[in-house]
């Protein structure tokens, strides 16, 4: 056990986890997930919101088993290595709001940091603007961190508090079996299933779930975090997490080449638009929100799996944010930004600045 524990805390440990994701994300695309979207935490949370009917965008409704696997895989790892610690109480409402705006920013770009990297590794040049925005947003976040920004301490709490989000995910999985997809129907019981668009494209349930569980397990062990990778480099010049992210991009690029999924260019990229400014701006907002919340959307799922109730609130914020994004026309599409996307982006940035500037109280 100790050997494994030490291995994942090493540079080769984090590189191997990045490489694992780099292999299986493109493979998930080959097995049915949308192009350049083997894994996208924001898109998949959004699809879950759709499956539950929190928004009615008919093309993005599917209960993504990868997300369920991420949380449950992390839970299993946390218990196996005696790291499950139930904790909560560090400004949950702020984390909820940050989750909402992180999702809105990600949906203006059309992807979370994971997908930004997968889009880049698939040849989508628009992702470059998203990645630059992500770096910019995280950089602003580090300025707040240097200035004393923090959300206060969490407290140890009842074990069952940390179980609530994993149990919710388990419930979502049960719903998928109780109300399975029926060919040609857009609804099965209480769950919505897309008939066309990205939501209709998915790998077989069991395959998605197993890969999700593996990624959740490995990411919990290695603390894989796409936002932390950039933040730690900017703040401390540390390259530990960054080496995992670079491994993801390089391996995904190679696997895409092998699978014939590398299509370089800007126009007509899958589930993407070419409005560079808003690709950049969307990810500035998402990057800042992730930095202020202490983790990328994947990391928030893994933290929620190991008992962090505040990260769980962030996850719920993202799912609710996806509801807002599609109900109010904030999310982009292949045609470009939604009618109110830019307004929401500005409100989101102002909200993050308000949070960053005002929450600097010294911790007791």
């Amino acid at each position: 056990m100790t050997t494994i524990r030490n291995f994942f805390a090493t540079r080769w440990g984090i590189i191997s986890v990045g490489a694992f994701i780099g292999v299986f994300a493109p493979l998930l695309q080959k097995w049915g997930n949308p192009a350049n979207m083997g894994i996208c935490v924001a898109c998949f949370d959004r699809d879950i919101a759709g499956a539950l009917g929190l928004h009615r965008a008919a093309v993005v409704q599917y209960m993504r088993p990868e997300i369920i696997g991420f949380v449950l895989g992390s839970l299993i790892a946390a218990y196996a290595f005696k790291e499950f610690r139930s904790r909560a109480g560090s400004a949950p409402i702020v984390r909820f709001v940050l989750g909402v705006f992180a999702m809105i920013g990600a949906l203006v770009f059309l992807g979370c940091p994971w997908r930004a990297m997968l889009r880049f590794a698939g040849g989508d040049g628009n992702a470059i603007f998203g990645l630059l925005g992500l770096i910019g947003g995280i950089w602003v976040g580090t300025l707040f961190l240097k200035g004393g920004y923090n959300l206060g301490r969490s407290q140890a709490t009842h074990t069952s508090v940390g179980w609530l989000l994993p149990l919710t995910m388990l419930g979502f999985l049960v719903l998928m079996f109780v109300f399975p997809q029926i060919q040609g129907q857009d609804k099965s019981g209480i769950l919505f299933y897309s008939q066309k668009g990205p939501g209709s494209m998915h790998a077989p349930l069991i395959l998605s779930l197993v890969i999700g569980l593996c990624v959740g397990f490995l990411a919990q062990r290695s603390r894989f975090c796409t936002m932390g990778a950039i933040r730690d480099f900017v703040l401390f010049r540390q390259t530990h997490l960054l080496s995992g992210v670079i491994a993801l991009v390089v391996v995904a690029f190679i696997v895409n080449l092998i699978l014939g999924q590398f299509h370089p260019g800007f126009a007509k990229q899958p589930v993407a638009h070419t409005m560079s400014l808003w690709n950049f701006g969307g990810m500035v907002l998402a990057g800042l929100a992730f930095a202020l919340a202490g983790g990328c959307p994947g990391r928030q799922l893994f933290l929620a799996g190991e008992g962090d109730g505040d990260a769980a609130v962030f996850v719920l914020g993202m799912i609710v944010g996806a509801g807002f994004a599609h109900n109010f026309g904030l999310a982009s599409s292949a045609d470009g930004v939604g009618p109110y996307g830019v307004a929401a982006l500005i409100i989101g940035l102002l909200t993050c600045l308000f949070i960053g500037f005002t929450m600097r109280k010294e911790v007791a």
Partner: protein
Amino acid sequence: MSKIVDARGLSCPQPVLLALNEIKKMNKGEIVVLVDTDTSKENVSRAATSQGWILKSVESEGTGYRISISRD
């Protein structure tokens, strides 16, 4: 008498930030950092050793860890 940095309950990257601030302030001596997650334990240990400090001991304390680092 070692300086104690209490980083329990704080999200990433606060434990590392607090530890590094103290490291910069002290330059040498002994610092004890209290953390409550394994992630923070690893991050603080990694950050301290990267600054040339020696990881003296990591002990379980309550639901967390007590990390002692030093530099002569």
